[in-house]
């Protein structure tokens, strides 16, 4: 079936919507990576079996014939509340079941699908309050889901559902009702800024690509989400692939490109599968290919799987990697807009940026600017992790304060501990502390305090986190992922890591701190690419806000959080020790000696700090400090 013109598409849209309307209930089983890992696909199969056994018609992906009163069973995208997975949502009741197991399916079908009842033990409750509806749960209530709106509320594998719910209308509008310049003007007016890290204005980039005279141009989507713990782009690609494809097509139309590439990590097999499926579906019905909907616009999209190098998220490294070369950034100018993929003008944005495009075209620049601050509008998806009550994928308006994110959505610090810092922007970002809790999260405000949104990782840390160790952790990542091209990043990150390792091992000297700062300054000022220039951020910000902890490690050889194994000492409280000798018998290195019925002693030179004695002691006489 090929859709050949606009009228035809509209006709189909109505048809699909009418089909969906015949579904009495819709069940969305989360098909995001987290829930799939938790067994959600088995739940899906079980539900399908049970629904059919109950004599109901099970309607999948709108591929069977419409049948009044059927149950629509769908694999949705990620709902974001991954730690509560596998999750499923039932419409129209908006029921949201958490931590569902295969054994629960029978009851779910009986009570909530055949009947209109609730399985109480599967709904979210907190502080004694139960929240049967998804939208009422505090984790969701304080979010503004724009890009992720359909993620979890639409069948991620069905182009028909996407079209039925208004998908590809923005492409239609662009191609038929707007000139290329008008499209670019809307994007420019909306002040949409690239979600990949630096926040470059998307409209400016688009118009620069359009201005290039080359007959061949490319649109490239950066899906190389490499920050540890970040999965925003992954969720969009897996959960709502067509939204991103539509954004790329609009970008192609506006800039004059006829080919698009998606660079996605091979470690995201589900994203690759869903994208491949989505592209094939769009090709099959003629939304990709030649003369799309009879508009005269040709566009096709290819997927390139990255081999998993963090540096390939950098524009020039990414394009050279697509070309089959070693992923190394090159010097600029020329910039990617002039000389990108295969040496041609290239419009390169990331997944989340493209996913914003259809929304802006649909609702207009003025509407978009009502969300968040004027210079940095829209929403931002964050991957919220760390020592926080609710972890997962969230989306909030730009300008939302850190406090709102951590306390309202995140539910505060886990175990009632004290908030210490949050690492924002992944390994290239910096840490923010209590004094920044009221800081609005947007490109400009963060830049002012020396941090960056980056791709959107938010790692929350409590009082038990050692900041020197945090810096060491991120530096270890950056140094492993440095491409090795320029001297400051290749050698500088390695030397910073050496020094940090020395400090956490208790061998640091005060001069090391000075060298560390010099290295951080040199790397920041002189590295070749953006990743190198930001590589020292975790070191710089932890030294800035937690210098006393560094000094403590170096001078007092002490880690106040007890994170640094080498700085721990284990000792026996002589007042409490009964001399039972249990500890000395369990010690694997014979570091404990003494006479029975007299206080024992640990030889610190021999002790390997394994803690076996602490666990064994019945009198709590062995302590760490």
């Amino acid at each position, binding site marked *: 079936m090929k859709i050949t013109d606009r009228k035809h598409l509209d006709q189909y849209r109505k048809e699909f919507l009418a089909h969906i309307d015949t579904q009495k209930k819709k069940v969305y089983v989360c098909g995001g990576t987290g829930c799939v890992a938790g067994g959600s696909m088995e739940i899906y199969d079980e539900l399908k079996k049970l629904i059919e056994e109950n004599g109901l018609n099970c309607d999948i992906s709108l591929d069977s014939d419409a049948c009044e009163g059927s149950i629509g069973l769908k694999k949705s995208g990620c709902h974001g509340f991954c730690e509560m997975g596998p999750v499923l949502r039932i419409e129209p009741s908006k029921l949201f079941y958490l931590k569902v197991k295969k054994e629960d399916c029978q009851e779910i079908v009986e009570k909530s699908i055949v009947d209109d009842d609730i399985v109480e033990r599967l709904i979210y409750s907190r502080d004694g309050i139960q929240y049967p509806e998804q939208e009422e749960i505090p984790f969701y209530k304080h979010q503004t889901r724009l890009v992720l709106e359909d993620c979890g509320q639409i069948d991620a594998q069905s182009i028909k559902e996407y079209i039925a719910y208004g998908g590809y209308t923005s492409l239609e509008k662009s191609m038929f009702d707007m000139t290329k310049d008008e499209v670019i003007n809307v994007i420019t007016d909306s002040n949409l800024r690239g979600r990949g890290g630096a926040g470059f204005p998307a409209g400016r980039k688009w118009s620069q690509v359009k201005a290039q005279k080359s007959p061949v141009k490319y649109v490239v989507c950066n899906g190389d989400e490499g920050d540890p713990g970040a999965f925003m782009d992954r969720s969009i690609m897996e959960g709502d692939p067509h939204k991103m494809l539509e954004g790329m097509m609009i970008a192609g139309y506006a800039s004059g490109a006829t080919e698009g590439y998606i660079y996605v990590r091979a470690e995201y097999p589900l994203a690759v599968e869903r994208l491949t499926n989505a592209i094939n579906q769009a090709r099959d019905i003629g939304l990709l290919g030649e003369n799309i909907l009879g508009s005269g616009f040709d566009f096709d999209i290819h997927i390139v799987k990255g081999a998993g190098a963090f540096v390939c998220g950098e524009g020039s490294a990414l394009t050279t990697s697509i070309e089959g070369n070693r992923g190394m950034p090159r010097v600029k100018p020329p910039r990617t807009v002039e000389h990108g993929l295969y040496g041609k003008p290239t419009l390169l944005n990331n997944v989340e940026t493209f996913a914003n495009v259809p929304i802006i075209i649909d609702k207009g620049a003025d509407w978009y600017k009502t969300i968040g601050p004027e210079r940095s509008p829209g929403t931002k998806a964050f991957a919220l992790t760390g020592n926080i009550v609710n972890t997962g994928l969230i989306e909030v308006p730009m300008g939302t304060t850190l406090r709102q994110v951590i306390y309202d959505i995140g539910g505060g610090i886990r175990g009632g501990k004290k908030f210490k810092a949050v690492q924002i922007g992944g390994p290239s970002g910096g840490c923010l502390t209590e004094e920044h809790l009221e800081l609005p999260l947007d490109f400009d405000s963060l830049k002012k305090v020396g941090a960056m949104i980056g791709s959107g990782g938010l790692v929350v840390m409590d009082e038990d986190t050692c900041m020197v160790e945090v810096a060491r952790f991120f530096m270890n990542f950056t140094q492993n992922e440095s491409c090795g091209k*320029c001297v400051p990043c290749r050698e500088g990150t*390695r*030397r910073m890591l050496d020094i940090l390792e020395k400090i956490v091992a208790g061998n640091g000297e005060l001069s090391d701190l000075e060298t560390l700062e010099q290295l951080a300054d040199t790397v920041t000022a002189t590295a070749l690419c953006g990743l190198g220039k930001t590589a020292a951020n975790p070191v710089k910000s932890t030294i800035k806000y937690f210098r006393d902890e560094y000094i403590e490690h170096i001078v007092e050889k002490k880690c106040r959080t007890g994170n640094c194994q080498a700085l721990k000492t284990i000792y026996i409280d002589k007042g409490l020790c009964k001399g039972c000798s249990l500890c000395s018998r369990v010690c694997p290195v014979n570091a404990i000696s003494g006479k029975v019925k007299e206080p024992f002693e640990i030889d610190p030179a021999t002790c390997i700090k394994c803690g076996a004695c602490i666990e064994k002691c019945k009198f709590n006489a062995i302590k760490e400090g």
Partner: protein
Amino acid sequence: MSAINKPRTMIVNGRPVPIEGEKTLLDLIRKAGFDVPTLCHHSQLSTFGACRMCIVEDKKGGIIASCSTPPKAGMEIKTNTPRIREYRKMILELMLADHNRDCITCEKRRDCELLNQAQRFGVDTVRFETYSMDGTKDMSSPAIIRHPDKCILCGDCIRVCDEIQNVGAMDFVNRGSNMEVMPAFDMPIAETNCVNCGQCSAVCPTAAITIRSNLPELWEMLNDDNIIVQAQIAPAVRVALGDDFNFPYGTNVMGKIVAALRKLGFDEVYDTATSADLTVIEEAAEFVERLNSGEKLPLFTSCCPAWVKYAENKHPELMDNISSCKSPMEMFGSVLKEKAKKDAAGKKNNKIVKNIAIMPCTAKKYEIQREDLKMNGEQVVDLSITTHELATLIIESGLNFKDLQPEAVDMPFGIASGAGVIFGVTGGVTEAVIRNVVNPENRSELDEIAFTGVRGLEGVKEVKLPFGEERVLSIAIVNGLRNAENLIKAIQSGEAYYDFVEVMACQGGCIAGAGQPFVIGRARPERSEGMYNADKMSNVRTSQANPVTEALYNDLLSGDNAHRLLHYK
């Protein structure tokens, strides 16, 4: 309205400097008289931007790499601010930390760019521990030695090998601080498609890639009374050796070289330009024969061993088109060995004859070992040393080179034509062959050939030349193997037609061979001029007019001997 006429200037260290088409800040700053340190920048290669030594500071305190930033009118930069100095020092310290610092015993101690810069910026301490030194060297190649412990990962070798030579024998592997430069699968370099051109060592700022030295063997020979040591000196050596003794670029020091060699104990000293005359005669005859038969055209030259190896690796289909002539060095070696054999016939207790070639080239070290150039299973040239090695030999011997009185080479091979001498520069072989084919009768006819377009250092030149009554010969001259590759593609696709193609692997020809002192980007025009001046000063301008060649064809090379001694098997 006056914007067009207004001079575009920018400010460098507080003083205005006009922008006159410079592509980068680096060029502009150097024009302004400040040397910007670089460790990964060569004007012939693509901009890499990895060493970050060329950084400068702008008005707002921004740090920019001058190698990759175009100048802009009104821009203000400073090149020696305290920050810049501190960063450069730190970068050098970082490089030195992961570098084998046995500088005193290092083969590159006289011209190491890293050492120079460390001294210039006063890096007096390295605070970081040195690791990843495992002492391994790749000694597999007869031409070059790889010593990864000394590599600073500037990538110059990779780019010259790929961009200029289209060989790509090495690349980066691993990432971050584990990055290394190596051939695919860490194979020994001799087992790759390396053509031994040595340009990697010429661009290497440190001793990570050096040229294999054969001086120890040579010293042995020179001190052995039972050996007759013969030298043959390639054309390009005479205009380059002077660099190592502070002569102006391009000075022809041939007479001094001959004098030096005699003093060092060489028994016989010859000029490879003499055997180049034989090459011209043989190759011209081959060319005319092919023109007449119309077969195996274009004729490709064969005197550059790196090119021959490249063709064997990548274009076996062209082997019939490549001239069957040996290179001048090999022809001389064959003739000298044949003569020695003849002289020795019937005599007892003959001394052993060893032929030493002094070459601008590293690939010659490989060429002398080729099986298909051996006679009776033995090499005809026993050692090939580079110009730079000759300089080292002279320095080690304690000879005062500068004050030597020039001497002439030995008879009976004491005459070389100007045509044989210009072999050392790109286009020279072609011009020499044309002189032979056209047979000019006077100076103005010679000049006409010189101005057909054969001269000049461009990478690709085309020459049209009338031949006989109605024919026009189409000739191409290329240097750099990537240029050769592009030309071959054009020929094979039918886009271009040539009768004769001269290929030299090194940019500019042998004058810029990797065995020459300080090759890259220096002294090419001066050396080229030195070659053509030597030709002009020569009283024999064409190979066929050289009485030595005539004598040889009547004696040693009579009958089948010419083919047996002067051509590949």
